[in-house]
Every structure is written in structure tokens, then in C-alpha cells.
């Protein structure tokens, strides 16, 4: 239903929207629209542990959710001023193109196609991921190269679907793809025994495994067959909003780098270090250049935290997912997370 609604919305928006799209008031920037309606509409998954999932009380949690909360904190100084649209992999781009959502923060892989012909803009990578395979331990498979002839459950509209085709083709292996519209259907069919293999981003494998009937009967194979740089996306045509999204991520990474956290924020506000003073908006007017306030980074860190706090809280080693920082460690600690200077 959601798909049909957003598709119709897209058709209508494309056809009759004067400048941008139906849900957006024409002639205004995305930021002005958000300020006028009083909240950010954020596209997330329909439930992926650690990234975006509603808890038992209906509150959304996860890394992708926290990113939207950080945006709300930066714009409104209130992380609750965000509404979430759960989207399947297939519907997500249409929802963004049609203006139904303001930002897509839905473990979405950045690819050239999506950045160009889908009319989206990616700008930062808030999680470096790669695609993996999960199988039943009883199959005694040790490597993905032994999977010739296997049935593979995969979700439609994902880079995963294409990567798995490439992988089997490149290695000259046969396979039977069984393609489902939502992550839930895919996992359910795998659990029911329809497929030998379930494939998605490695982080997703760990997140979905906890949903299986007997999680311990399943294992993740060692191979990572692709690069999956996940990040938030916005529509083409509004550079200011793209800048805000981009620098919100950089602000969280910079805060971690400078050791500014939720806990020591008030202490840091007394700091004499010019870099910290500049980042926290005590000196300079970086926030205003973005169209926000001077204390935008303070707001983000106070309400949401720095990058490591977000990571550890949602997917880190102490959570059920237990994912190590790996590629997502800071650049000076052996990882790839690197933010341009805030000045």
C-alpha cells in the first residue's frame, strides 16, 4: 500500500507540482519547509535492529534514527521533532523524490546510479559496510565459493540483489535467487527453509539473525563480497539542506575526534582550545553559515552525542549486535571515519 501511495504521490507530484514536489511548499527551501512544519520527516527501515527499529514503547532507536535526531537537534534544539516513515528498500527513493520525506536515513548504499539518475544526493558515509552471506550450520559450508546451486533469499531493490548476481557470475557458480519485497518477508522465507542462503549487508545479517527461530543454528560466512558505504541521502536541487545533512555527520565525527561527548560537554564549553571553541560555536559563526545557529554542534552533542556514543549505543560490542568499530573507527585509529575541518 505504502508503495502505491508514494508512487501515486510521485506521479502526481511530478505532474502537477509547480517546482519541487507535492509535500513541499513551492518556492521555499527544504530548511524553510521544515521550520514551517516544525519537524523533520525522516525515511527509515521497517525494522532493522541497531539501525532503525521501534522499541516496545514505539520509540524509534538505532544509528540511522539517531542521525535524524541529530538533524532535529541541530535545527530545532529538540531531538524529538522528527517523524519517521518506515520504508521498504523498494519504496525509499520514490518517497524521497516525491518530497514525502526530507531525508533518507535508511542504511542506503551510495552508488553512482543513485547519486545521478535517481535524482538523489549522497554526501557522507556514516557506516562502512560490506555484503555477506548467512547459512545454516548444518550445511557444513565454510566459504561462499562452495555455494554453487544454492537458493539465495534476497530483498528486492537493493545493491545486494545486484552484488549477489555479480558474485555468482564472476565465480561461475549457479544459484537461484528468490526475491522478496521487504526485509521481513525475506528473513521469514529463509527461516522457513525456502533458501539455503540469506544475503544482505554484514551489519544486517547480525541484526536479522537475532530474529530467527534458532539464531545459533545459523552462521555468517567469512567472505565480504562488496563495498557498501551507507549514508543519508537528500533530493537534488537544495544545496543548503545537503550541507546541513553533511555537516551534521561531520560534527559528530569531529566531536569524537576532539573528545567532546555528552558527558563532558559543559566542561568543554569552558575550554580554551581554539579548535574546540570554534566547533562549539563560542568563536566564529560556522553554524550561521549553514543556516543554523552558532551552537549547532552543542545541540547535536547534548541531545544525541558524538559518533562513538551513537555507534556504541546502537550496534557496538556491548549491544546484542556486537559489531566492532573496524572500518568505522576514526581515521587516526585505523578506520575510515574522517571529517573535514569545521572552520
Amino acid at each position, binding site marked *: 500500500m505504502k*508503495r502505491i501511495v508514494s*508512487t501515486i504521490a*510521485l*506521479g502526481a*507530484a*511530478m*505532474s*502537477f*507540482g*509547480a*517546482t*519541487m*514536489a507535492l509535500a513541499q511548499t513551492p518556492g521555499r527551501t527544504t530548511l524553510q519547509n521544515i521550520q514551517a512544519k516544525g519537524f523533520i520527516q525522516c525515511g527509515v527501515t521497517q525494522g532493522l535492529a541497531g539501525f532503525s527499529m521501534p522499541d516496545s514503547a514505539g520509540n524509534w532507536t538505532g544509528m540511522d534514527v539517531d542521525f535524524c535526531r541529530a538533524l532535529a537537534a541541530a535545527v530545532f534544539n529538540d531531538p524529538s521533532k522528527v517523524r519517521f516513515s518506515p520504508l521498504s*528498500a*523498494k519504496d525509499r*527513493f*520514490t518517497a524521497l*523524490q516525491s518530497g514525502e520525506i526530507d531525508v533518507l536515513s535508511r542504511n542506503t548504499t551510495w552508488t553512482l*546510479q*543513485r547519486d*545521478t*539518475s*535517481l*535524482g538523489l544526493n549522497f554526501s557522507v558515509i556514516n557506516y562502512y559496510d560490506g555484503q555477506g552471506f548467512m547459512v545454516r550450520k548444518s*550445511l557444513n559450508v565454510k566459504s561462499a565459493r*562452495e*555455494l*554453487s*546451486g*544454492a*537458493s539465495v*533469499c534476497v530483498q*528486492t*531493490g537493493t545493491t545486494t*540483489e*545486484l552484488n*549477489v*548476481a*555479480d558474485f*555468482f*557470475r564472476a565465480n561461475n557458480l549457479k*544459484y*537461484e*535467487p*528468490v*526475491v*522478496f*519485497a521487504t526485509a521481513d*518477508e*525475506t528473513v*521469514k*522465507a529463509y527461516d*522457513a*527453509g*525456502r533458501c*539455503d542462503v540469506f544475503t544482505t549487508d554484514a551489519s544486517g545479517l547480525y541484526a536479522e539473525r537475532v530474529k530467527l527461530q534458532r539464531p545459533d543454528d545459523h552462521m555468517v560466512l567469512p567472505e565480504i563480497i562488496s563495498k557498501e558505504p551507507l549514508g543519508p541521502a537528500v*533530493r*537534488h*536541487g537544495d544545496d543548503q539542506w545537503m550541507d546541513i545533512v553533511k555537516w551534521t555527520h561531520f560534527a559528530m565525527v569531529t566531536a569524537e575526534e576532539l573528545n567532546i561527548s555528552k558527558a563532558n560537554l559543559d566542561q568543554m564549553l569552558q575550554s580554551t582550545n581554539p579548535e574546540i571553541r570554534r566547533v562549539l560555536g563560542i568563536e566564529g559563526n560556522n553554524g550561521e553559515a549553514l543556516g543554523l545557529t552558532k551552537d549547532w554542534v552543542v545541540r547535536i552533542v547534548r541531545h544525541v552525542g558524538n559518533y562513538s556514543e551513537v555507534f556504541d549505543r546502537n550496534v557496538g560490542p556491548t549491544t546484542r549486535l556486537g559489531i566492532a568499530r573496524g572500518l568505522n573507527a576514526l581515521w587516526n585509529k585505523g578506520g575510515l571515519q574522517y571529517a573535514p575541518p569545521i572552520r
Partner: protein
Amino acid sequence: MTDGTLPARGDVAPKVAFFNDPKVRSLIFQALALALLIFVIYTAISNAVTNLTNQRIAAGFGFLDQTAGFGISQTLIPWAESMSYGRAFVIGLLNTLLVAVVGIFLATILGFVVGVARLSPNWVISKIAYWYVEIIRNLPLLFQILFWYLAVLAAMPAPRNSYSLFGLFFANQRGITAPRPVFEAGAIWIGAALVLGIVAAFVVRSWAYRRQAETGEQFPVVPTMWGIIIGLPVLAYLATGMPISFNYAEQGRFNLTGGMTIIPEFVALVIALVAYTAAFIGEIVRAGIQAVSHGQTEAGRSLGLAEGRILNLIVIPQALRVIIPPLTSQYLNLAKNSSLAVGIGYPDMVSVGGTILNQTGQAIEIIAMWMGCYLTISIVTSIFMNWYNERIALVER
């Protein structure tokens, strides 16, 4: 007018203003409506083009030639990931047609059985048919599809412990596997013999009918027809040196390899669509039969016809006139409902098209293609059923 004669009709223009002339008026209104329609369509298209250009989303059908790069689980024509989006869409379309044709065929049979059973004098049979109709048609179809899918999967063993029939046919969670015929050179003659056999059978039938009409002598038409239809290809098969061999399924590492497999998504979808549509067809058939006056049956009995012949020769031909028009709607429903396949991962037109839509972002084009295809399927079905309806309509003399 003084001489008392009336002017001839049409000589004098009516003395009303042109905007009060009903003819002129209706022309003006029609022109206005047309202009408005054209304006709306033009605005919609030009706005869509402008907005797409503004967002730098490519438009047009050029993407259909690009490499698709994804796999499809059931393909009626050969498929490889390196082929184009256009071919992928055609494969989806063929899968939709396959479900529609198989579904319509089976739903018609089951529906007629249910409809006749509903009227059976046997209390148990008629109650079973009654509850079947009442339960099935009151449950949502998507729910039934998911039920059958998970039921089929749950009932079947893992591929390493397949159910097997004579070691030729297998059933497991990956589907139903049968030996795959391999056609070698000369096999074409068998196909030709089959076509020839069917034509010959119908020639024999019309000859037998004509002879019965002229002389009253009967001829065993049905056994002869089957004899010709089956016998000719078998003769051809033997004469050409048995050019068909079979590729048998064998146990592979994960699943059976070889043979040909019907995937569980197809089985579940067909079962659900057939069961659901047959409940409606059953009611239509019952209504059609009840629409034939009981006097017709009695007339048949008084002529001394057997019950089966009364049904075949008197009741059903008259009932069909009532049955066909609503039956057409059910056929159309079945074809359109097959789009729910996307819920269980059957690669139909909506599922494959959705993947293409998502990979390329060409929403408007794909939706237009979906609409065009469903519209064509429905209209062709309608045209055929209308033709059939006219053919069986009561000939009034």
C-alpha cells in the same frame, strides 16, 4: 403566411439565438470539454518533464536496453544477468501470463464443480460446497496467498530429504521437480503430428455429426478423437527413432540438479488464486443453473433423456448465457490479482518491474508499462469472452 400555407420544413431558420440552439450548444460544450482535457493532459506531461529535468532524473524508455544485472528465479525464456531490463520485464510479463492462464483454466474447472455441487441433492456435498464458498470468498486474498506459501513450505521436507515418486518426481522446499524432456533432431515431427492429430480429430467429429444428422447412425466420436490425438504423435515418436530423452534430477550439494522444477511460489500462488476465484465462479455457475427454468429439465425428462444429457444439452447451454458475462469479470480479477505475487517473491511483472523501477528510478515509465500490459491482458480477455458470449447467445428466430 397570409395565404394560410405553412412554410416547408427547413426553409426558415428557427428564430433563436445561436447559443440557445441545442445543436450548437452541445457542440460548444463538447469542444470545451475536449479542450479542458487536452489542457490537463498537456500540463501534466509538460510539468512532469520539467520536474524530472529539474531533478536531473533521466526520462524515456532508453533504460530498457541497459544491462539488468539481477537474477530471476523462474524464466520461461532463457535469461542471464547480462541481458537487458527490457527482456527482464518480458520475463515478468510471461510469468504473469503463465499464472493467469493456468489459474483461469483450473479455477474454471473447480468453479463449475463447486457450483454444481452446491445444487447437489446430496446434503453432505452441497454443504461442503456451501462452506467452501462462504469461507474462501470472505477471507482476504493476500492472506490466503501467504497462508498457502508458508503452508507449502512447512509441509515440504528440506531438499536433502525430498519426497520422491519412483525416483523420477521429487517434492521439497525448493519446489516440485520432474524429469525434463530433451528434444533432439526430429522431435519437430512429433509436434507436427500432434497438430495434425488435433485437426484430424475435429474433421472426424464434424463428419460424424453430419452423418448422424443425415442417417441417424451414431459413431464413437470421443474415443476416436483421443485415439487420433494421442496415436499420431506416438507413431511419429517411434517412426523418427525416439528423439526425446529425459534429463533426470539428481541430488546435488544443496538441492536437486537437473530436471525441471516448479517453484513453490508458483504453486502457492496458483492454489490461492484458483481456490479464491473458484469460490466466486461457483456462485456464478449456481446462479446460472438456477436461472434455467425447472420446466426445461422436466421437458427433457418427459422426452426420455438421461439426466447427464439433460444437463449437457439443455441446462448448461442455457445457463452459459447467464454465466459468461460475470465469469469474464472473474477472469479479469484473477489476472489482476496475480500481482499480489510480489508478497511471496514470485517473479511476476510487478515484482520484476519493481526491481527495475528501483534500480533505474524510472517510476513513471514502469508504471505506464504495467498499466499498458494489464490493460492489454484484460481487454484481450474481454474481447475473447464477448466473442464467445455472442456465439452461445440465444439465437432468436
